[in-house]
Structures are given as C-alpha cells and as structure tokens.
C-alpha cells in the first residue's frame, strides 16, 4: 500500500513576531520553519506501518515558500521514501487551496491512504484533511489516536468530545491524526545522511492549479494582552472568601 503524508511548514515562535506594526500578518522571509507537530505523528505512523510490512512506499508532500523546503529533508530523515515540494511564494494559501493542490497530487500518485495532521499549530483551523477527503470523494477518519490496517479497510479510533469512537473506512481514505497516536522518533545521523540522496520533486502551486486564491481576507490582527497581576493568597480560607464575593 502506498501512503501520502501531508506535512505543513509552520513557524513556532512568539506571537510578537507574527504580527506586523500595521496589524497584518508577517512575511515569512528569514524565518525558520519546522514540521507542524501533528504531521510528525503522521509521518511516524506511516513509517511504523512500513516497518510492520503494511505499507510499501511513503511519499511526503508539503506546500510552502521556498525557504521552508528544509522540512521535506526532515520528513525524509524520519523515514519517508520520497518527497514532493510545492513551492508557493504567495503566502495566502487557505485550507481549501491546500486541499485542491493535495487533491492534484493524490490523483497523480493514487495512494491508498493519505495521512495528515488533525490541525496545525499556527492557524489551528483543522480543515484540510476533511476538505481533501470531500474533494476526492474518499472516506474520512479524523482526530485519530489509533489506526489498524485490515486487508480491505482501515479501522480507526477517533477522539470525540465525549469519549472515543471506532469507525471502519474503506480504501482509499484520508486520515487526520492526533498527537496521541504515537511518539515520533528522532532521526538518526545515518538517516539524515541517507535523506540527502532521496528524490524530491519540486513543483509550483501556480502551475498546478489556477484556483487557489483566498476566500477569506484578514482585515486586522490584534494582539491580546493576557498578563494579569494576580493576588497572592496565603491559604484556602482567603481563597474561599474571595470566591464567595465573586462567584460561589
């Protein structure tokens, strides 16, 4: 079985650097990208399935500005076999556009399963996998914390608001994973060296799809100041007194 893993380049840094003076979003120039943490779990899951003999090939695909290409190497060092990097210099790609680009790759590669993260740590929208599944007309398993591959289908345990749910998905399918699905490994030095020799296809978003412009426009971003100078209470009696006035 061939598996496609979608990895998103994200910037993990203090919000101060993410908002410009004029209350718009930053330019990503000169910033260092990391793999969205949920996507590390997605790669790890694919690698484990390959080690278990259930998966034959792992392809990682990432869409981002050219300076985020380093994350493809990281993904290959974790154990993916080859990479596809879609360069998108215009930064305003929204989940629907990402899903359209991933769909094009899915149709070219025809994997039996696509694994994505359940959300990303920057925009936190958690939409891409579901949109991709709908555009492809494939089955969908979201917020997955356990995945079992059977001969003709996939069984997943999903984390839902009031507990856990088990569903069965026919192939091909799109899965989005939670951090709890596994514990990603560290890339060994020899794997990092091997990764440099693995093939990477470089494509351009504009060449692939002409329908990726944003539907949502950011008018303004405002930093929220959360810092408080709280009152240090000596004991529980003082606490109860305060709370009696305020709430209970």
């Amino acid at each position: 079985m061939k598996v496609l893993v979608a990895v998103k380049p994200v910037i993990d840094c203090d919000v101060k650097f993410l908002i410009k003076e004029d209350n718009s979003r930053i330019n990503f120039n000169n910033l260092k990208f990391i793999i969205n943490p949920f996507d590390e779990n997605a790669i790890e899951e694919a690698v484990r399935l390959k080690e278990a003999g259930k998966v034959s090939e792992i392809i990682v695909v990432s869409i981002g500005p050219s300076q985020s290409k380093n994350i493809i190497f990281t993904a290959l060092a974790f154990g993916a076999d080859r990479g596809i990097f879609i360069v998108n210099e215009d930064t305003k790609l929204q989940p629907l556009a990402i899903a359209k680009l991933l769909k094009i790759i899915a149709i070219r590669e025809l994997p039996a399963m696509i694994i994505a993260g359940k959300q990303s740590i920057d925009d936190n929208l958690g939409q891409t996998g579901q949109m991709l599944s709908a555009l492809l007309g494939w089955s969908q398993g979201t917020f997955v914390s356990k995945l079992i591959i059977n001969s003709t289908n996939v069984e997943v345990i999903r984390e839902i608001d009031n507990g856990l749910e088990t569903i069965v998905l026919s192939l091909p399918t799109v899965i989005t994973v939670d951090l709890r699905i596994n514990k990603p490994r560290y890339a060994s030095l020899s794997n990092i060296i091997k990764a440099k020799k693995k093939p990477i296809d470089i494509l351009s978003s504009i060449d692939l799809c002409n329908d990726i412009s944003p539907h949502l426009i950011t008018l303004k971003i405002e930093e929220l100041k959360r810092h408080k100078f709280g009152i240090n209470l000596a004991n529980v009696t003082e606490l109860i007194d305060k709370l009696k006035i305020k709430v209970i």
Partner: protein
Amino acid sequence: MSALVIAEHNNITLEPTTLNTITAAKQLDEDIHILIAGHMIYQIADIATKIDSVTKVLLADNIIYAHGLAEPLSSLITEIGHNYHAILASATTHSKNVLPRVAALFDVAQISDVSNIISNDTFIRQIYTGKALEILKSKDNIKIITVRSSSFKEAKNTGGHAIIETVSNKNYSLCSSFLSRQINKSRRPELITSKIIISGGRGIGSIENFKLLEVVADKLGAAVGATRAAVDSGFATTDMQIGQSGKIVSPELYIAVAISGAPQHIAGISDSKIIVAINKDKDAPIISIADYFIVGDLYQILPELVTELNK
C-alpha cells in the same frame, strides 16, 4: 434567504450548544431553519419546533445518519444548503468533522471557531493559541461557520412555532461505517458550558489525587478538566483535555491545580472570567495570567479546600 443551523444531538436529546449556535445565527438572519439529521429523532424534532426564532425544522430521519458519519451528512447538507446564505454549527468535534467537507463541496471557505459576528460577512476569531484576534471578511456567497459556543448565549427553548419539513439525501456514498462508541458519561456539567471548572495537570501525580479534584468539583457543582500531560499520564480521559488541541472553555471560574500554564493549555482557558492557580512553583507561567493564586503543595491545599467547602 435564511440561515441554517446544524443541530447536534444523540438521537434522543439536543445538545445545549445548538442553542448557542442559534443565537449566533440570529445575528445573521431573522429566519432560522434547523437541520436535524439522525435516526428515530421525532422527539428532538418536536423540541426543536419550540426554540425561539426557529421557523422551520428540517428533519432527515434515516439509519445512515444515526451515528453522524461525515460523508453522508456532508452530502445531505450540501444538497439542501443551496437555499441558505449561512450554515452554522457549534465548534465541536462533530461539526469540525463534517463542515469542512460541506465548505469544500460548495467551493467556499470555512470560518472556524467564530467568537464575534460583526456583520453578514465579517467575523472575529482567535489565532496563535489565543494570543491574538483576527478580524476577517469572507468573499463567499455561502458562509460556512463554526461557532465558539461560550461566546454566545443559549437561545430560549420556548416560544417558537416552527413547521417541520422532511428532507432526504439522493446522492451519498457509504464508504465508512460505525463500529462502536465509548462515551465517558459524567454526572458533572459539560466542560464547554460549565460555569465552574477545576482542572488538574501532570503535577497531580496520580489517579487517586485526581479523585480529590472530583470531590472539590462536586462541592462546587463544577466540571473537571485536565491538561494534555495529565491525560497522557493516565489521570484523566481524552475528552477532559482542555487547550489548543482539546476543548476551549470559558467558565466564570477556572481553578488550575498543578498546571504549569503552557501556551497550548492557556489557549483553551484564556476566556475564563476568573482564573485561580494552585501551584508549588511561584514562577509557573500560569501565575502570570491568574487573578488569584496560592503557592503551595496540592497535597496540603486540596484536602484543606475539601474541609473548608464542607463547612
């Protein structure tokens, strides 16, 4: 054109968050329809006709909707959704599973986790783990919206006189099937709507100590939450996790016991009115966002709290 609210339910009762979503919908339209898709759901349909401001209940009763599977439900919503300028649901795992599909099938964006509605096309949501607000404008003619329940009041469930119309789904594929669900039933209030929450972190140390939190919770009529680290340590179940990748809460009172205050946890609690931190480390980040804090050992403080509340 009207606004459509997707009801959330367990085939027997309506989830209260649906009422919060109706209030949000009222800010977009006076004519509100509600879709109830499930199996053997006449009882809920009847309840829904009485909700204030709802004029029409769309009833889709079919075994294929019984467990809320995303594929058939999203194609149903897409088939009937053309008649609406806005489709709203609460930002629960249920709609996060379904609505992005609907948005993709309409070729429109989804506006996620909206906390404020400024106009028919302009909305506010939090980004960067709650450290910033984004004001955004949608260019789409159908707005697909998930609503942060805690930011909108519950609509009244009396006073309405809606009509019921049955709807069905012509094209759907059954590419997934439901096997089982393990519901963690709690007699305590729901986290996302609870007025008081007491949460424990990794520092709680054991399941037994976590039980102490439950004792305090019952005295206060509170819900019990946890950090991801507490869940991963096995002290609490996954549905109790609060934060960026768990539930977003906004109680009147949030008591954080042995929680360091990582940004991913704060993302889920920063809308709380009053935050109380109990931590042995006076430099823990949680202290800097707390209204009140006690620096000390939970092994001493929690039993004291139980005794005080018993008085």
